[in-house]
């Protein structure tokens, strides 16, 4: 998978590059709109991660230009810009998703996966964790043919952990994934633990959940 990162903040593009490379993406980086446009038009990318506040041009211009030239890449807009219309404008221009800064790299990766699934249709929309079959399209979980009734949040948590299997996801990352859009006053609530506890209880009723690890003081991990 080829990814182009268009981001003028070098430290940020560097961290994104490190992360995505570890996830087996091939990354190119452009630090301004002009070289970004050139690279988008001359190479074939699967993803373009586009910052809107570029020094030489508006990121939306790049997007418009690329779409005009029938660029096939999926665009994810990354921005700290506060204008409300940006999101709508970006999506109207054909962007596939929009993430506000600051964002989590794990979240970015999950969004990219979702786009892949949507755009290209993965061979299988079923994720297998030990005996559990997680159907992402239908949002159902089965274990040995038995349907497990999960709430929306429990499903999202399981899916997110499965997506990042063998890696610890911190409580903060999980909270952001589940409640990222809700701006409330809590920053040290233990609601994630409650959800995990319930999720684990439901799963363990159907099969072994030895793979579902708690990492003390940090978070949770699906260890396969």
């Amino acid at each position: 998978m080829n990814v182009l990162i268009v981001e003028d903040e070098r430290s940020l593009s560097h961290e994104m590059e490190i992360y995505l490379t570890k996830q087996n993406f091939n990354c190119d980086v452009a630090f301004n709109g002009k070289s970004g446009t050139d690279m988008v038009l001359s190479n074939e990318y699967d993803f373009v991660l586009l910052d809107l506040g570029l020094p030489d041009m508006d990121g939306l211009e790049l997007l418009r230009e690329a779409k005009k030239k029938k660029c096939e890449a999926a665009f994810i807009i990354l921005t700290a810009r506060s204008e409300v219309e940006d999101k709508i404008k970006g999506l109207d221009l054909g962007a596939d998703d929009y993430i506000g800064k600051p964002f989590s790299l794990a979240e970015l990766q999950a969004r990219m996966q979702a786009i892949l699934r949507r755009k290209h249709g993965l061979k299988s929309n079923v994720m297998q964790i030990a005996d559990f079959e997680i159907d992402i399209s239908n949002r159902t979980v089965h274990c040995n043919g038995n349907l497990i009734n999960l709430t929306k949040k429990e499903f999202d948590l399981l899916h997110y952990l499965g997506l990042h299997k063998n890696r610890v996801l911190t409580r903060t990352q999980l909270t952001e994934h589940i409640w990222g859009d809700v701006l409330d006053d809590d920053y040290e609530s233990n609601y994630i633990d409650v959800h995990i506890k319930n999720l684990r209880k439901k799963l363990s009723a159907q099969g072994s959940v030895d793979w579902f690890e708690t990492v003390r003081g940090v978070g949770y991990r699906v260890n396969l």
Partner: protein
Amino acid sequence: MNILPSFIKRRKSPTIQTKFAIYNGLSKIVIVLAFNAILPIIVQKLVYDHIDKRLIARSERVLLTVKKGGIEEITLEQDCSFESYSILKEEFVAIYPILDPRKMSRDMDISDEEWRSSNGEAMKHRIIKRPFTYDNQLYELNVGEGIGSIEQLKNTFQQFSFMIMLFFVIVSLFIDLGFVSILMRPLNKIMERKLKPVPSPNNFDFTKINTTTREFNKLDQRINEMMLMLKDAFQIEKEFISNVSHELQTPISIIQNRLENLMIDQELNEEVMIKLSDSQRTLNRMSKIIKALLLISKIENDQYLKNEKIDLIQLLDEVLEEIEERLIEKDIKIIRQFYENFEINPGNKALLYTMFTNVINNAIKYNKEGGNIIITTKTIGNEFTIEIKDTGLGMKKEDIPTIFDRFKRLNNSTAEGFGLGLPIVKTIANFHQMKVRVDSEVGVGTSFTFITEINTD
């Protein structure tokens, strides 16, 4: 406790116009009464002056006759005195010899006296008394004129003038009132347009009030200037918050991503991992504060659209579903008293969602285990109200007015939070022209009531 602005409750004091009318009316009445009291005296004075002149002239004439023709011309009787009375004119001329010169006045003397005419009727007369010498004999000439009719004249005059003056007072009072009301019109306009409460200086009406009165011109101009300064100050503050928040997003992003990259490393020992995770949480807290500030400043800068129709009960249900687990965790029951539904139009659904989430979250956070949250929606008059009431800790009365202040946290509160949850609630409510009322009692619970006026059109 009510968070509504204090001016709503203040008792109404009288307007300048009312005061003017009262002052004008009273002062005119005083003038009329005083004039009415003085008028008889003036009338009397005028009439007396006139009579006196006449009496003097007549006495001069009599004296002249005496001088020319002798006293015999007039005195025909033995005792050398003379009295002549004309009934019709109520006049008389009388001459008496003076036997005791000490009793005599030296000069002429005019006074009011009872005078009994020859037909025996006593009547009030104005009498001039003049001594004169004739043939070495002292005489006193009395010339009199009846004044009984003058009293009558005085009364008639008084009544008549009172009526006329009353008429003029009433007419002038109406003219005054009309003039004052025209004069005060610019001030009323200033009151209406410039002094009405506005949610922010952005909503202030800066149009000039047309007036030729210098004071009102100045007042209007100064109010506009002051509001402009306020507006600028607000704008600068908002822009500052917005810029600072925005500029902080990028460095936070960098650190956040760096922490994530560090934590992917499988070889990290447990202690480092915990520290990194803690740092991530701290960073997240900072990020949330900035997001909250940015949210508030964006709403206040009208950078949010308000173009959706929102079914209120549906929205509340969505919020309740979102936080269902939190309710179960604390064994809190939701009691729905949805007497009426309401459509918020236009509104911003995401913002209202955040608003209700924050309030219900608060109701959970400050509730006791196994408590209740009662949500009531109903219409009172032309207002629709949504009340969210918990059975929790409650607040002290003196704490209520400051709960919407940014970064204000109650001293005795043990719950976490950075003190922007309720300011967000207030800002979103304002954005949707909703009033928020907070009632609370320690140990009983707190209720938040959102009040929105029902559009009749």
